[in-house]
């Protein structure tokens, strides 16, 4: 396959597109043409503008007269000339990818029949193709491959965002042989270019132009592209391909195992003898415990399983060794824990020393600072923490004091008011007594006045008795006494002379002092 810049491409005609290099490689730059400058906005340059010339010079050293005139848009292509940068990698062939997820039929390009890569949709008829496939089809005939609608590659194509998103989500396997990485298609390029250990990168040796898997591209491994004679056949093989050579095309790549006559790939022989060959004579695995059995592997295996008398003791010893190991491990861990505990305790003690300094003045920072500077604290944080703790304990003390004071105050308040209450009650009762005395005195006075008046008209026989009875009950039952006195009085007035005493009575009442 000719590289894209060989003269072959110069004579390319629409009838002989097979001269083109493989589309997957030669057409990937198409993306630069179609994606960064969407076809909706045609390039702001005339088809004959200098960029077209750039295309010509970049794509082929010889002019390409057979290129259809619809291709000046390829001006946007990145220069596909040989890559002198040693960091560039072989491109991913998106048509060769293995898809892990099931791909809907509608996501397949009708031309390459694989899931779209950089899909483009035709504007007049709405059909979708991979950019590379469509590009190539349009080169042959500028019509839609499905319905032959005439297409202009500069104007009639657009991409469908939702389709791109759908395609980005497809799960694909890394194309590198030996790599099992599966990721969404969107992330494949990053994995391939940056992380995959099997990507073919340039050989670390400066004078070597070949490629080697990234995992082998280490300076200390040197250049793996030197030829070395195969140790089994006459060919000389590149070191990088030695494994492959042994497995596939080495002339003497298989050999008979000397013990079991099996045909084994030569460079796997050691492994075969050490692990698999049933006829190789090996020792019983309980040999360290005293068994002296040596036999071909298959017999020894049987012996180990059932007959070996050292099996029991061997198992016991092995278990004991396991236990011992575990004990040692636990011991180590215990001492570690102890150590840490001791350290923690020391620190704790150090941090507790400070709050007990009788430093009760909050503003007395100059006194606290020297204690930090003198090295009593491991770090400012410790110091601050200790200070904080001190503050906190002080706050606690203050709170307690406040609570105490509060209690005192309320007690005193309660005591004082109790006394006052008692005094008020006492005064109250005294006032009551005084009131009674006044009533009594008034009654007495009234009676004496009544007697004086009755003295002229004959006083009632029981009036003195009424007054004495009310005075006897006075004080304790003043209200009762009063009511009795009132009723007596009214009885007395109503019993005695009709209209005149009543009138007089009302007159008397007006003169009475207010009752208590």
């Amino acid at each position, binding site marked *: 396959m000719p590289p894209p810049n060989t003269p072959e491409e110069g004579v390319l005609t629409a009838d002989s597109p097979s001269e083109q*290099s*493989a589309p997957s*490689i030669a057409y990937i730059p198409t993306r630069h043409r179609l994606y960064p400058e969407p076809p909706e906005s045609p390039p702001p340059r005339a088809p004959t503008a200098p960029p077209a010339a750039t295309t010509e010079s970049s794509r082929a050293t010889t002019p390409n007269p057979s290129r259809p005139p619809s291709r000046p848009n390829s001006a946007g292509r990145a220069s596909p000339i040989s890559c002198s940068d040693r960091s*560039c990698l072989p491109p991913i062939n998106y048509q060769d990818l293995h898809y892990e997820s099931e791909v809907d039929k509608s996501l397949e390009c*009708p031309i390459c029949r694989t899931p779209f890569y950089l899909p483009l949709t035709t504007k007049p008829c709405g059909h979708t193709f991979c950019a590379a496939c469509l590009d190539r089809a349009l080169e042959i005939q500028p*019509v839609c491959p499905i319905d*032959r609608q005439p297409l202009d590659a500069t104007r009639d194509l657009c991409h469908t965002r939702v389709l791109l998103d759908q395609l980005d989500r497809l799960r694909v396997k890394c194309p590198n042989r030996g790599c099992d990485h599966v990721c969404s298609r969107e992330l494949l390029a990053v994995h391939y270019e940056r992380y995959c250990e099997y990507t073919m990168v340039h050989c670390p040796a400066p004078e070597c*132009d070949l490629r080697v*898997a990234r995992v082998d591209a280490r300076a200390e491994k040197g250049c793996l592209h030197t030829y070395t004679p195969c140790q089994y056949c006459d060919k000389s093989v590149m070191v990088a391909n030695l494994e492959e050579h042994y497995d596939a095309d080495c002339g003497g790549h298989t050999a008979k195992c000397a013990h079991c006559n099996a045909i084994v790939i030569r460079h796997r022989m050691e492994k075969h003898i050490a692990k698999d060959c049933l006829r190789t004579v090996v020792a019983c695995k309980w040999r360290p415990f005293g068994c002296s059995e040596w036999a071909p592997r298959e017999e020894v295996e049987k012996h180990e399983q059932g007959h070996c008398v050292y099996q029991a003791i061997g198992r016991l010893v092995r278990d004991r060794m396991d236990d011992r190991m575990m004990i040692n491990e636990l011991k180590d861990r215990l001492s570690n824990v102890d150590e840490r505990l001791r350290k923690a305790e020391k620190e704790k003690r150090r941090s507790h020393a400070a709050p007990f300094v009788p430093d009760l003045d909050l503003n007395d920072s100059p006194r606290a600072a020297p204690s930090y500077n003198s090295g009593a604290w491991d770090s400012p944080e410790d110091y601050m923490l200790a200070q904080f703790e001190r503050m906190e304990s002080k706050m606690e003390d203050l709170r307690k004091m406040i609570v105490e004071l509060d209690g005192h105050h309320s007690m005193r308040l309660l005591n004082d008011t109790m006394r006052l209450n008692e005094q008020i009650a006492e005064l109250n009762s005294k006032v009551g007594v005084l009131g009674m005395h006044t009533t009594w005195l008034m009654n007495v006075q009234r009676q004496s006045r009544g007697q004086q008046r009755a003295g002229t008209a004959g006083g009632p026989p029981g009036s003195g008795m009424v007054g004495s009875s009310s005075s006897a009950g006075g004080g304790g039952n003043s209200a009762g006494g009063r009511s009795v006195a009132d009723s007596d009085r009214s009885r007395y007035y109503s019993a005695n002379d009709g209209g005149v005493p009543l009138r007089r009575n009302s007159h008397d009442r007006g003169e009475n002092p207010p009752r208590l």
Partner: protein
Amino acid sequence: MEDSQNAAPGSVSANKLGGARKAADPGQNAAKRLQTELMMLMTSPAPGVSAFPSADGNLLSWRATIEGPDDTPYAGLTFKLSFEFPSNYPYAPPTVIYRTPIYHPNVDFSGRICLDILKDKWTAAYNIQTVLLSLQSLLGEPNNSSPLNGEAAELWEKDPALFKSKVMDRHKDLEDD
């Protein structure tokens, strides 16, 4: 992403040198597409047509069969064809030839077919199955305006009975592969 795109063409040569990675040879993409088509034909075959790569293991050469559609002079007959794919398939049409002798206005006596989609009307979206279905429908509806076999074109219109007998005379089942 961008980087890999930029890197693409230059690394073609590097690819060749890489040793472990084989460079894509021309026709590899055609072979890949044909493999996909084979898968399609196996999983969802169309009635009356079938195709398979020829026995020699060359994926660019296929053998196909078409059964004559009912209600046509070709009813009940089976025709064998050969497909030869160019290395730039599907961008160029395959060469399709009737291997079974057939009397048809658009097929000449050596089996070459006059069908626009196999010539200038070919597009990359066609595939083996669509070609076979087109050929099958051509059996029932020949294009008599551009015949390869003028006599057949004339008889198709004028004397269907004679046409039918000519078809039966010409038909001969192939025994080989």
